């Protein structure tokens, strides 16, 4: 059973637009939800993370929205730039787990 489901698989956004990527999780014991960014040929790098005690976290142009009752969280990239073109992964974990469970990834292409 896939623990974290991510959509869409791919996304094309114009420069300056808003990119939105969604994730849903199954296990209510998860209490840590990071987003990772991966460029071709590189390993994933932490972008932003949230815990379920808040509904939103913002860092620069990147915002996570979290809906605990719906077991969903999303990444919003404001004023998207061509340099944001990468693959984004949501993940879930917690202190009762020995691993991160990753979503299947969203390939973002920001058109200039």
């Amino acid at each position, binding site marked *: 059973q896939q623990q974290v489901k991510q959509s869409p698989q791919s996304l094309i956004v114009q420069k300056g637009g808003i990119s939105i990527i969604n994730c849903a999780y199954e296990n209510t014991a998860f209490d840590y939800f990071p987003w990772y960014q991966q460029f071709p040929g590189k390993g994933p790098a932490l972008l932003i993370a949230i815990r379920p005690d808040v509904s939103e976290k913002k860092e620069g142009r990147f915002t996570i929205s979290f809906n605990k009752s719906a077991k969903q969280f999303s990444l919003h990239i404001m004023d998207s730039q061509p340099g944001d073109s990468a693959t984004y992964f949501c993940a879930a974990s917690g202190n009762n787990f020995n*691993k991160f469970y*990753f979503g299947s990834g969203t390939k973002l292409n920001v058109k200039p």
Partner: protein
Amino acid sequence: GAGVSQTPSNKVTEKGKYVELRCDPISGHTALYWYRQSLGQGPEFLIYFQGTGAADDSGLPNDRFFAVRPEGSVSTLKIQRTERGDSAVYLCASSPTAGAHTDTQYFGPGTRLTVL
């Protein structure tokens, strides 16, 4: 300070051969993870080391896969009798604190394994 490094960056082998993939974590990081990433998929957990011991190897797909971390720093993932289905990018990650699984995991660039 250097990040996580992995060698080789690419490995091509023939079906049935044995391979070793190496991970050098960030100095001082206690926790080390191995993941496997197939094309178009997210990283999939293989094994977690807390210091020298494998605290969780539940993600290893079968007994052809084995990993060690004898001195609590460098780790080696070993695959015996490789199969074409083992072809993937193998990622290593480290984090500062063992047992705190919400720490940031710092990933290496991965080793791309191709089994012909």
